[in-house]
Structure formats: structure tokens, C-alpha cells
């Protein structure tokens, strides 16, 4: 068959085969690495885990079942319990909302000072980017635990930790947004002699504000989860309550808290999708 083909086609065929082989080889290599990672990871886990894997699988449904049985036995008396924990939930939401707002403002400042199209000084950009990298990379939990140790139990450490992390995480996204925005309005304003602040106010901000708000809402959703988790190490709110209830083994109350949390998170998920859709017209 190949003999009938002209010479250049033969060459193409050879190249194609070479490429296909190369692709297969790199895919196989990738798969081999993945399998290696999987097995070594499993070995590490098997050695490090306290309980055995098979017993864990067998016990998986025990805890949820106990919770549901506890709840079922309470009957109609259950619902007041759910309502009882709403104030705790509001504390958690308050922490998240407040620190997201402050973090948002800080992130805007970070982003302005790290965008190549707004700042000419490379040192300033590098410094701000480094600052954002550091604040973003620390898990909130670590910051919160250190501040909890220093300041004692209250919601403040959670607020500080989430604010710091939010400033870094949003700052990075905001920087990308500003750097990708249209340069023509900025030029236009420069041509009429606008100052630096005026340029930002009237050319950059109108372009990026919807995107900023959209990212901010997404971050709010993440921060509600974060502030719940920080409650677990003593920052107050529904997380702390849940940790205590688990320790006391109040199955029905644990489930009540979980219901509240899951309900809130799912509601926020839909709400944020809806808001962001309104803001920028896409779901992402």
C-alpha cells in the first residue's frame, strides 16, 4: 500500500508514526508516574493511619446512622433545636462577611500596586506580589491559631486570619483583571491630562468593578466555610458549637448544626451563582 504513495506522503506517514509513538510514550510515562504516586501514597496512608482501611469502610455508615436515629427519636421536638443554633450561624456569617469586605478593600489596594499597567516601578510591583504570595499561601488556620494563642478565645483571630488570606487571594485575581483590561480608556484619560487617581477612578475601575464584585462574592462563599472551620479551633460561631456538641455526643444537635451549615452553603452557592450571573453574565 505505502509503495503506491508518492515520496513526500511517505515522509508524512513516517513523521506521523514518529509523533504518535512519542505521544504514546509520554502518555504511558504520565500514567506510570500517576500509578506510582498512587501506590506509594497508599502505602504511606496505610502505615500512618490509626484504624485499618477495611474496618473504616465497614464503619462508614455507623456515625451518620447514629445521628439520624438520635434525631428520629426526638420527633417533633427537634425543630426548636435547629432554630436554637441560628444565632451561632449568624455569628459565623458575620465573621465571613466582615472579613471579606475588609479583605476586598485591601485586595484592591494590593492589585493597584501590583499591576504593570498602573505602576511603572518594578520594585513596588515585585514587593506587592511577594506580599500577596505570602498572605495567600498561609492557610487561614495557621494564622488564626497563632492569633488565638496571642489574643485568647474570641472571633477576632478568625477575622484577622480570613482578612489576610482574602487580601492575598483576591489581590492576585484582581491584578490579573486589571492587567487584562482595555488600555484605551487609560490612554484617553492620559491625553486629557488626568491624574493617576483620576485614571484609576474613571478608566480602570468601571471596567473591572463587575469582575471584582463577582470574585468577591465567590470569595464570600469560600470564607463562610473557612469561618466555620476556624470555629473548630476556638474562634466562635457555629463551628465551635459543633465541635463542642460532637465532643458531648449530642447526636441530634450535631445533625441540626450540620443541616444548618449544609443549607447555608447550598443556598449561598445558588445565590452567588445568581448574583455573579447578573453581574458579568456568565456563570464562572
Amino acid at each position: 500500500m505505502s509503495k503506491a504513495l508518492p515520496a513526500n506522503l511517505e515522509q508524512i506517514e513516517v513523521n506521523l508514526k514518529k509523533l504518535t509513538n512519542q505521544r504514546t510514550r509520554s502518555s504511558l510515562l504520565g500514567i506510570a508516574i500517576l500509578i506510582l504516586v498512587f501506590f506509594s501514597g497508599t502505602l504511606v496512608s496505610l502505615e500512618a493511619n490509626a484504624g485499618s482501611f477495611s474496618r473504616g469502610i465497614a464503619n462508614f455508615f455507623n456515625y451518620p446512622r447514629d445521628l439520624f436515629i438520635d434525631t428520629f427519636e426526638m420527633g417533633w421536638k427537634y425543630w426548636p433545636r435547629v432554630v436554637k443554633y441560628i444565632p451561632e450561624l449568624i455569628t459565623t456569617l458575620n465573621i465571613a462577611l466582615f472579613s471579606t469586605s475588609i479583605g476586598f478593600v485591601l485586595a484592591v489596594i494590593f492589585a493597584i500596586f501590583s499591576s504593570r499597567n498602573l505602576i511603572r516601578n518594578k520594585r513596588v510591583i515585585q514587593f506587592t506580589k511577594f506580599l500577596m504570595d505570602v498572605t495567600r499561601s498561609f492557610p487561614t488556620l495557621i494564622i488564626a491559631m497563632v492569633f488565638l494563642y496571642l489574643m485568647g478565645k474570641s472571633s477576632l483571630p478568625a477575622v484577622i486570619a480570613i482578612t489576610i488570606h482574602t487580601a492575598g487571594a483576591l489581590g492576585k485575581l484582581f491584578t490579573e483583571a486589571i492587567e487584562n483590561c482595555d488600555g484605551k480608556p487609560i490612554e484617553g484619560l492620559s491625553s486629557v491630562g488626568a491624574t493617576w487617581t483620576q485614571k484609576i477612578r474613571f478608566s480602570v475601575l468601571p471596567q473591572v468593578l463587575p469582575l471584582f464584585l463577582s470574585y468577591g462574592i465567590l470569595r464570600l462563599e469560600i470564607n463562610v466555610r473557612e469561618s466555620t472551620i476556624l470555629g473548630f479551633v476556638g474562634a466562635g460561631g457555629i463551628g465551635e458549637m459543633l465541635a463542642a456538641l460532637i465532643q458531648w455526643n449530642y447526636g441530634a444537635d450535631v445533625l441540626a448544626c450540620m443541616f444548618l451549615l449544609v443549607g447555608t452553603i447550598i443556598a449561598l452557592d445558588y445565590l452567588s451563582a445568581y448574583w455573579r450571573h447578573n453581574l458579568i453574565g456568565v456563570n464562572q
Partner: protein
Amino acid sequence: MSSSLAIERDNIRKLFPDTFIQARKSRIKGQIIFFLILIYLIIGFFTLDVVDIPKKWKPQNAAMFVLDTYAHKDHVTMKWENPDDIKIAFEGNYRSVYGRDNLDKSIPEWFYKNSDNIGNVIEFNNQGKAILYKDRVEIVNFPKYERDFTIKLNTNGKPYVVGSEDLAKDDLKGFRITENRVEFRPTLHERVQVYPKKVEIHRYSIGWKYFWFDFSSPLEPYSFFEALGLTFSKERVVPEMSNLKLFLTEIKDNEAFMHGRVWWAMLETIVMAVLGTMFATVMALPLSFLAAYNVTPIKALRFTLRRLFDTLRGIDFLIWSLIFLRAFGPGPFTGIFAIGFTDTGTLGKLYSEAIENTEKKQQEGVQSTGASKFLQHRFGIIPQILPIFVSQSLYYLESNTRGAVIIGAMGAGGIGLQFLGALGTGNDFENVAYMAILVLAVVIFMDRLSAWLRRILIGTDQLIVR
């Protein structure tokens, strides 16, 4: 000039009345929203006790914490009833006492006999000296102090500064005198405390001492590179094992920094993140095909799967890890499954949206050759979405590394739990700093790794959404 401009402006206003009214409306709306946010911030300010920050912020605590993260201290203790027995211990640890075995060799050089051959001198890093006598403590030669001080016990057995009645308050700065204690702390790095029963002196130096080899290690006299050089020499430091083995075990079993345990914990955390993300990817891949309308015609199945994704995602990994903690006990499996279950929901949703957004034409092209449904998806859809899949999974790998630290701290083990433990002891802040830096390094490393993998696999290091 200005009047003609005004006329022009009025003309434009008349021509496009809707535009200007609209603009004013949206401006007012913006202002109202701005004020609402401002009001909320004020409310939040008070409900979250932000005003209390100055009250709760104890600068002394914070300074001690920061000091201990970068410095170490040696304790010198002398009991009044037995002034000859002076104990010098690293960090006050009873297991790290200098000169316990052979006195002459390992007593630090900043502790020596005074020129009068009676007192014992502790020389601080700023050349200030505390001299211990049988009946008094002399504080001499401190920079920025014009006079020397003597602390003695009075007839009731309480400590006092000799001649302090005659001194002005300004001369006694750095002293804190209470009934049962005289403390002299000119800067954070020197501290002399005199009690009715004993004298305790803390001498701080900068750096992490014993970072590589701990106090009782046979390799302690050597620096890291000297010890590394020793591994190539034939002469054994300890007869039982080779130098290389000694070098590795001494680092691993370091009592102060616990490298072996910390690194193992870090590995556990990374394993949680990597295997959790793998688990989620493998689960989400087939499910997302079943949840996409251009692949699965059955509406009920799609609907069920979509709600399943929402539920998995909505039950946050916090709650998942609580459930798995009960089943598997503390360990990486808890983390793997908690991350895996949550991210099956997240990735499933993102993947199925990506599948629904693919170009139809490629699939139709494959279909036109008479390929089966399976082959259509294999060659029509997968090549289009593979970059998105890879990009999303790698992105989540990065954020799951942070998540794994958190799950660890809630009881699943790993570096999170170690960190919590070190913080809880209340004095191992150099370990706290060490672990924090380690976590930071690993998170940044994973971040770079995932960006690098994205770049070589799909040509861009940005997160592809669609």
C-alpha cells in the same frame, strides 16, 4: 466660551434625556449601596469586637512569641541555699544541662569565674555581666546604664536592690520589683530574676541552635557541613554505626526540631492532598459525562447526578472529615476521602459544564465516519475537554494542600496536628515557626508545581474555565 459650552450641554441633555436620568439613577443606586456597606461595616466593627483589639492585644506576649521564634535562650539557675551548685540548661530543659558529664569541656564560654576568683560571671551578648556571689547578684557593665547594681536578700529573705531608695525612677528602668521578685530586663535578650529561693538568669542568642543535631547528639560539636564532611571520612564518630547512618539518624531523631516526625507529617499531608484530588478526578470523570445533556439523554439521571454533586459539595469537607474521622480514625484516609468526596462534587459540576460547552462539530465529524457512541465521545469530546480537566484538577490539587493542613488540625493528623501540638505547649515557638515556614514552602512549591505542569501539559499556566 463658557456660556456656549453650557448651551451645548443643555442641547445634549435635551437630545438624550434618558441617558442622563439613567446615569443619575444608577449613581444614586451606587451611593445607597455604598452607604449600606458602610453601615454594615460599622455594625460589624462593634458586633465582632474589633474595638477590643488594643485591649486584647498583649504586646508583651506577642514580643515573647516573636522573640522565641528566632532566638534561643540558656537558663542559669542558682539556689540560695546551695550557691555552689549552679545549673546551666538549654531552654531550661532538665534534659539539656551543660557540663553534666564532663564539666570543663562543655560549659559555655560566656560562663566563667570572676577575676576575684569568687563570683561566677554570666556575660550577655551586649557585654553586660551578671555576677553571682553567695549572698548577692551584681549587675555590671550594661550599656546605657551609668551605674552597676547589686541585688541582695534582706533579713526577711526577700530580694531588693541595694540603695534603690536613693535612686530616681529613671535610673531603675528595666527593673520590675515586686514583693517576692526583682526582675531586671533591660532588653528582651537579657533577663535576671531574683527570688527568695533562687536566682534565674535567661540569656538569649539569635538563631535556631541544635537545628540539625540536638543537645545530646554525638555530632553536636560539628556544624552541618562539618558533619556532612565527616560522612566521607573513615574514622567513626560512634563505633556502633557508620558516619552516614549516624548523620541521618541524628537529624531524623533530633529532639528539639523533630525533623523525622515533622517531615513524615508533611508527607502525610501531601499524600492526603494528592490522593484526595486523584480520587475526586477519577470519580468525577465518568459521572460528569453522565450528567452532561449532550452525552446522556435521560433527564432523570442527569438531574439526580446534578443534585448529587451539589450535595457532595454542600456538605463541606469539614463535615465529611468529621464523618470519616469516626470511621477511619486519625490518619490520611480521613483526609483523602474528605477531600475526595467534596471535590467529586466540585469537579463533577465543573467537568460536566465543560462537556456541555464543547463544540458539536467535532463529535459530528466523528459520527459521520460511522463511529459508535463511545468512539464519538472518545474522539469528539475528550480531546476538547482534556486541557480543562487537567487545569481544573491541578488547580484543586493546589488548594487541597491547604485544605489537607486544615483537616489534619481537626484530628486527621499530618502537619496540621503537629502544628497545633507545638503551639499548645506554649514554649516551642521555634518549632511553630519552623512548621509554619515548612507549610508555606510546601504550599508555594505545590502552587509552582501545578503551574509548571499546566504549562507543559496544556501550554498555559492560567486556570482554564471554558
